[in-house]
């Protein structure tokens, strides 16, 4: 199977392990990735919320930005305070375009002598080109093609990690450190994409298999595929780039204004100075005409991406951007965009599914309590 450029499909360092564990492999962003293991998506989802799930996310892009001006330079691309990001701290960021839309969402960590950036697999090449085009000259943009990325997520993750590396117990949500795990030089952050406490571990690719085996040897740990990764993040109200946010959605429309740092807003120390700042700052001040909302279908039928959303009078008010079955909630959940006037929690709307109109209610996000460890 080949991607659009007709290059051969890629494998992460854990490909053979996934196959050995009985994973069903599917192509995703140019990589063969495990969508599920034999137990199935619901079992994997539940296991992650009960114990600890191990995810191979090595397909994502890991990049170092090196140079004294790296933080200032990166601020020219994101509406986030990077200059004020302390060493050992991580922040959620967005690459924006001139229309105020989102080119990708990413994590930025101040690793002391460089900025460590993680971007979505599907946008990896475009993001690196974007950074090179706009930052090259002010700092070095170094893709870390030889590194792997593992995520250990769930209420038991901290106990497992503490057994292997006591220093991990000192990390709180959105902090990171270079930590030796079993003799492997890892860069560990306490964050993730599930709504649970957990860690993301960046490590040399050649050591990924060993660390995966080490983690899987702990009773609490099970391997988790992309299928459950998606249901977990949806239940946690987290956006999937290309679906809930994209080049046509602004951070304000996407309910991500919380990520727009005070320092970069009007009246802040370094207001604007990123693509689309005028649009975004205008929306911060005046509101957006549409908003991302959570949705709870009334029945048991899932309401999926692409379903039209209508108000009680049958007029289209928006569209579903993510939807499926949420195992912890025990029923279907969805996210979508609706006209600002319909975005109130409790508002009753209708979703068009296979020609029928199903009642849905605007719901609070996240659908399950986020359990980040803040110390």
């Amino acid at each position, binding site marked *: 199977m080949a991607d659009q450029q007709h290059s051969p499909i890629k494998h992460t360092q854990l490909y053979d392990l996934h196959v050995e564990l009985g994973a069903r492999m599917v192509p995703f962003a140019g990589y063969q990735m495990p969508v599920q293991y034999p137990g199935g998506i619901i079992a994997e989802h539940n296991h992650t919320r009960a114990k600890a799930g191990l995810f191979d996310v090595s397909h994502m892009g890991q990049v170092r930005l090196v140079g004294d001006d790296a933080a200032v330079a990166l601020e020219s691309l994101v509406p986030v305070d990077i200059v004020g990001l302390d060493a050992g701290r991580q922040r959620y960021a967005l690459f924006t375009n001139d229309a105020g839309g989102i080119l990708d969402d990413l994590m930025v960590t101040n690793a002391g002598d460089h900025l460590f950036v993680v971007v979505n697999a599907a946008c990896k090449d475009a993001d690196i080109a974007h950074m090179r085009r706009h930052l090259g000259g002010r700092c070095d943009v170094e893709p870390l093609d030889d590194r792997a990325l593992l995520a250990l997520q769930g209420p038991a993750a901290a106990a497992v990690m503490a057994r292997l590396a006591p220093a991990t117990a000192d990390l709180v949500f959105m902090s990171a450190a270079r930590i030796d795990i079993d003799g492997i030089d890892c860069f560990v952050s306490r964050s993730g994409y599930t709504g649970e406490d957990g860690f993301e571990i960046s490590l040399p690719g050649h050591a990924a298999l060993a660390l995966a085996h080490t983690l899987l040897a702990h009773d609490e740990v099970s391997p988790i595929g992309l299928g459950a990764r998606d249901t977990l993040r949806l239940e946690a109200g987290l956006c999937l780039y290309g679906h809930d946010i994209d080049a046509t959605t602004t951070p304000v429309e996407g309910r991500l204004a919380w990520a727009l740092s005070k320092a970069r807003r009007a009246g802040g120390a370094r207001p604007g100075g990123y693509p689309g700042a005028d649009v975004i700052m205008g929306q911060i001040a005046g509101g957006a005409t549409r908003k991302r909302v959570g949705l709870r279908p009334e029945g048991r039928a899932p309401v999926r991406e692409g379903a039209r959303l209508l108000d009680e009078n049958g007029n289209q008010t928006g569209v579903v951007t993510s939807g499926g079955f949420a195992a912890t909630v025990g029923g*279907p959940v969805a996210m979508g965009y609706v006209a600002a006037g319909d975005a109130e929690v409790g508002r009753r709307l209708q979703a068009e599914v296979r020609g029928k109109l199903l009642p849905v209610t605007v719901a609070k996000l996240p659908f399950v309590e986020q359990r980040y460890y803040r110390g």
Partner: protein
Amino acid sequence: MSEMKFTEAHDWVRPEGDDVATVGITDYAQEQLGDVVFVELPGVGTEVGQGGDAAVVESVKAASEVHAPVSGTVTEANDALADNPVRVNEDPTGDGWFFKLKMSDPSELDDLMDEDAYKTYIAGLE
């Protein structure tokens, strides 16, 4: 004892006598689908044509159409699946049945595969 027949789309149909037959999806189908979270069944009285839309089975990831293996009128739907869709995974040829219909042309069963032919067919898919 009436024989189960199978379609290439992994549906089964079992004649029960009096031209009534039960329809469901096979073990192969439920395994491919993964966890079933919702089943949309036809209403009693619905007329279905062989190969036409009859039901929808939703897994975690996606919705799949189930087509009628033979033509007829729906006489009963397995309402128990509303509260317990996972029965489709657990017992696809028993408790996980989808609906029963009164066949309008039982000779359509002859178009379908018997169990041995179906086993050969799915072996060839691997």
